[in-house]
């Protein structure tokens, strides 16, 4: 796209529509102002927000310019509009049943789609708060060409090399995330918060404004950059000190290390990621201050991975692909010249770039797919509702043909009649919008507790804000007006000639209504099949063998690392905790692991044959354990042993390094051997001078990343040997049959008994955590079930309406048939056959459509084929059953047509 001279303009369609809403003599001078504002908004907030702004402002102009009566005659327009709306309200009030049905279905459809929109807006559309033009930023990280979604840390040397080697970026800064305990006043009221260690230019690159103070001071030596300084978020400053001003300049203890608050970021900014939960930022020096075991050459050592994520602010014209290619060239050069670099350590490493900041790049496609499926489900429901409203409107319009024609004959203009129809549907749309807002409020409340793709607290702040409400209103009015258009077309605009045939519905009108009912059944067919497949998937996932036993276990997080505690003391503390926990009769087994075992991304390490080719080695999830953790997990050992009887405490110095690997890792390392034959083998860890490790046990494969076909290799090492995360995750297994959640107070009590200063946080059952691994599938199945039930209900109402109207229309015919000797079963059969005909007419294309759409669902299914005959069979039976049930009432009414009365009326 050419840059510079060319000036972007708002989308032509939006502009044209806006122009239509504004009186001609004002049009050009309004549009020129709108263009101007749109451009500056687009520049500041991105195209999507600018679009929304334009839509809202255009509406505002149309309403206000007319309402203000700037031009002559506008007063009459307003008066007419008010009169029409009142007329519409009266028409609806006269038929409360009709109005309620229409408003309710509309509300359900609108509420569903609005809830999904709110979720999508939260995770995908909304720019990261507090970051300037976030869509222009580029996220860079070290990924793998073979393992999708996996990423590794870059060293400081890598960052410096990229800063030199990647052209077309104004700045390049780095971040690494951690969690810390923070407190003012020597530990009182300590709270746990997400923290980030960042390069000093981080805030400038993101364009973050400060509410007070400044960023940490940069120094040529990264080890001194921002030493002793922290920046707080406005939110954390307010929560801890009461106000922004009250926090600035104070001493804050971060994991027990004193720092000074030198800055407070502007409100809203809580990190470059979504959801933003970062409360405190430290300079690179913070890494050394917080981790006493960090090597001296942390920033000089080229292989020492530090930075998790880089963010670049490109110059205009630079693209994401351009940055990715330039960064990859830097990595390749390091490979060729054998430079010390963390980015060259594995053959399939590659530099990856992603547009914008916010949602974690590994989660983006998954979250997008889930949201798209949710949106599709909700859109189907709205479509169903729209068909239903149109159907009701047509029935209504047909029944008023007489009245309409009389009014036309009396001189009411065609335009006026159309306007009244529109006004009536605007009123209905407004009702639908209100109902939609109510349903959206409920739906958003339900979605708030949902975690998409383990996407943390992604939806916690979800709310029915004005923008989301605006979407609901637009959807309701739009659907209602479309239905009005359908009704207008079906009623033929009220031709006076229709007067003659006013009492009998037209054949084409009947066909249209039957067609709409069939459409509803068809849409329901798609929904029923989709929900059925997802429901079976969730049942399969819950029954899935994860390789460990998630039931009956409570998980807690502890942070035993403190500056004044060395590795040996941490081990001793964990040993005391394990024995104190296991001494309690309620506890079957307890152990600690690091890092968190159940998650999508791992701390990976490398194992390979001694003296062999590095390419023959394998990468696996690295897990460090203290106490009988594997026992607490319920992992079956296939051969050898784990690290019981205190073996986990031995560091590499006082014994041979040991590892337990899982089945798949054993097979990959020693292809032709049984697990028992692998035990006792010695393998290399590939870390230069690190001694080789002996495989002491082989365990079952574990589904640590959730229900995916490829289970990761897992290497379990004793706590004393290797690198543990700061947080120790404790798993406490309850005695058989006991409720693990009930262990929570006991665990707190035991921990407080061992060390009262040790906070216990994030208490949860492992079952909840395991279920969360397929949260997306559960949400989809849940929503699918609700939507398909509603769909069926709406379709049933539709069929019932059409048949009921037909029976009413054909009273005479039915009466004559009954008089001529047709018996009850024949009359019943006729009406039921009509219902069945509508259902079949809809089901055939519906099921075909479902067949076409299942391929979008295929990647989400587990243990059930997309064309599973059971699901499809049951779905078909349910659809036919619902159609017959819906036809039953009108059919019974047909059998009760009073023959004598009908014939006498005819006579």
């Amino acid at each position, binding site marked *: 796209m050419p840059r510079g001279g060319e*000036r972007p303009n708002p989308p032509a369609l939006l502009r044209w529509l806006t122009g239509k809403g504004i009186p001609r003599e004002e049009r*050009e*001078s*309004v549009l*020129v*102002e*709108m263009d*101007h*504002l749109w451009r*500056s908004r687009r520049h500041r907030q991105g195209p999507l927000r600018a679009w929304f702004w334009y839509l809202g*402002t255009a509406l*505002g*102009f149309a*309403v*206000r*310019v007319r309402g*203000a*009566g*700037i031009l002559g005659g506008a007063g009459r327009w307003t008066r007419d509009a008010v009169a029409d709306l009142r007329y519409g309200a009266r028409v609806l009030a006269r038929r409360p049943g009709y109005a309620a049905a229409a408003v309710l279905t509309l509300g359900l459809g609108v509420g569903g789609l609005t809830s999904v929109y709110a979720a999508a807006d939260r995770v995908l559309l909304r720019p990261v708060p507090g970051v300037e033009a976030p869509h222009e930023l580029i996220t860079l990280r070290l990924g793998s060409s073979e393992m999708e979604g996996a990423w590794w840390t870059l060293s400081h040397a890598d960052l410096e090399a990229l800063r030199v080697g990647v052209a077309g970026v104004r700045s390049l800064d780095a971040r690494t995330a951690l969690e810390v305990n923070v407190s003012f006043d020597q530990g009182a009221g300590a709270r746990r918060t997400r923290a980030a260690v960042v390069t000093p230019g981080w805030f400038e690159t993101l364009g973050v404004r400060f509410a007070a103070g400044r960023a940490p001071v940069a120094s040529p030596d990264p080890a001194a950059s921002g030493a002793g300084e922290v920046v707080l978020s406005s939110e954390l400053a307010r929560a801890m000190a009461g*106000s*922004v001003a009250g926090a600035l300049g104070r001493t804050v203890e971060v994991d027990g290390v004193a720092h000074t608050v030198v800055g407070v970021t502007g409100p809203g900014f809580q990190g470059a990621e979504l959801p933003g939960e970062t409360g405190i930022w430290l300079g690179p020096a913070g890494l050394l201050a917080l981790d006493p075991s960090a090597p001296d050459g942390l920033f000089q050592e080229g292989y020492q991975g530090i930075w998790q994520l880089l963010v670049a602010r490109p110059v205009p014209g630079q693209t994401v692909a351009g940055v990715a290619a330039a960064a990859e060239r830097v990595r390749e050069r390091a490979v060729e010249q054998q430079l010390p670099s963390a980015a060259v350590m594995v053959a399939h490493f590659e530099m990856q770039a992603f547009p914008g900041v916010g949602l974690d790049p590994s989660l983006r496609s998954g979250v997008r797919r889930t949201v798209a499926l949710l949106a599709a489900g909700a859109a189907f429901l709205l479509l169903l509702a729209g068909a239903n409203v149109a159907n009701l409107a047509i029935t209504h319009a047909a029944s008023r043909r007489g009245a309409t024609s009389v009014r036309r004959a009396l001189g009411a203009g065609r335009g006026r009649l159309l306007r009244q129809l529109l006004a009536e549907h605007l009123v209905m749309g407004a009702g639908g919008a209100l109902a939609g807002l109510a349903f959206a409020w409920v739906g958003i409340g339900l979605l708030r507790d949902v975690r998409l793709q383990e996407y943390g607290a992604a939806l916690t702040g979800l709310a029915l804000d004005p923008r989301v409400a605006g979407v609901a209103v637009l959807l309701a009015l739009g659907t209602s007006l479309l239905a009005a258009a359908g009704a207008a077309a079906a009623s033929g605009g009220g031709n006076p000639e229709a007067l003659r045939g006013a009492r009998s519905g037209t054949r084409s009108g009947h066909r249209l209504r039957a067609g709409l009912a069939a459409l509803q059944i068809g849409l329901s067919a798609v929904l029923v099949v989709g929900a059925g497949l997802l429901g079976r998937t969730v049942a399969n996932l819950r029954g899935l063998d994860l390789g460990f036993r998630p039931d009956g276990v409570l998980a807690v997080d502890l942070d035993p690392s403190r500056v004044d505690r060395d590795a040996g003391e941490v081990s001793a503390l964990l040993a005391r905790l394990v024995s104190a926990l296991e001494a309690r009769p309620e506890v079957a087994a307890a152990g600690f692991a690091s890092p968190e075992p159940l998650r999508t991304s791992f701390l990976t390490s490398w194992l390979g044959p001694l003296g062999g080719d590095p390419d023959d080695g394998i990468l696996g999830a690295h897990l460090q354990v203290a106490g009988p953790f594997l026992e607490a997990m319920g992992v079956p050992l296939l051969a050898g042993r784990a690290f019981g009887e205190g073996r986990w405490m031995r560091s590499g110095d006082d014994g041979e390094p040991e590892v337990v690997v899982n089945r798949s890792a054993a097979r990959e390392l020693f292809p032709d051997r049984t697990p028992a034959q692998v035990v006792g083998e010695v393998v290399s860890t590939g870390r230069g001078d690190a001694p080789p490790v002996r495989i002491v046990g082989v365990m079952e494969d574990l589904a640590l990343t959730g229900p995916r076909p490829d289970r990761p290799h897992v290497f379990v090492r004793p706590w004393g040997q290797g690198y543990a995360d700061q947080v120790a995750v404790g798993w406490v297994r309850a005695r058989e049959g006991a409720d693990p959640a009930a262990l929570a107070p006991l665990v707190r009590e035991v921990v407080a008994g061992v060390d009262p200063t040790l906070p216990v946080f994030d208490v949860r059952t492992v079952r909840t955590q395991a279920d969360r691994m397929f949260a997306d599938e559960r949400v989809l199945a849940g929503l699918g079930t609700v939507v398909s039930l509603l769909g069926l209900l709406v379709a049933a109402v539709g069929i019932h309406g059409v048949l009921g109207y037909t029976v009413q229309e054909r009273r005479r015919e039915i009466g004559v048939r009954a008089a001529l000797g047709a018996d009850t079963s024949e009359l019943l059969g006729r009406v039921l056959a009509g219902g069945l005909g509508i259902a079949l007419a809809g089901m055939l294309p519906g099921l075909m459509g479902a067949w076409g759409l299942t391929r979008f669902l295929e990647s989400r299914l587990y243990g059930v084929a997309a064309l599973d005959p059971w699901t499809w069979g049951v779905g078909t039976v349910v659809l036919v059953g619902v159609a017959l049930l819906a036809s039953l009432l009108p059919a019974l009414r047909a059998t009760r047509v009073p023959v004598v009365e009908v014939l006498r009326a005819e006579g």
Partner: protein
Amino acid sequence: MGGRDGHGGREALGEFEHHVLLVALRLGDGAFTALIVEELEARTGRSVAAAAVYIALRRLEKKGLVTSELRMDDSAGTNRERRFVGVTPAGVQVLAAARDDFQRLWEGMEPALDSSGERG
């Protein structure tokens, strides 16, 4: 319709109109709706509806406090006509009178502000 000036004296000025008029005066000859919207947003920190500004300007024009003129806007590079506004002497007078009113109303009130607590 309200807004008719009953006592033959000064035009009554709503708060928003007051703001718009003041910003138009500040921007001088080259003032137009979009510019006024942006200036208002920048100075008050609140978002402002463009339509409201547009209408306020037309209303002020009716009251004789601003004049408007359709002119080619060369700066846009697209040669489109744009409605430029300027504050009339009557408009300046109304603003000056409003400021005097405020000043008189505020006389001796500073202590009341200080006692009402800290301001964010």
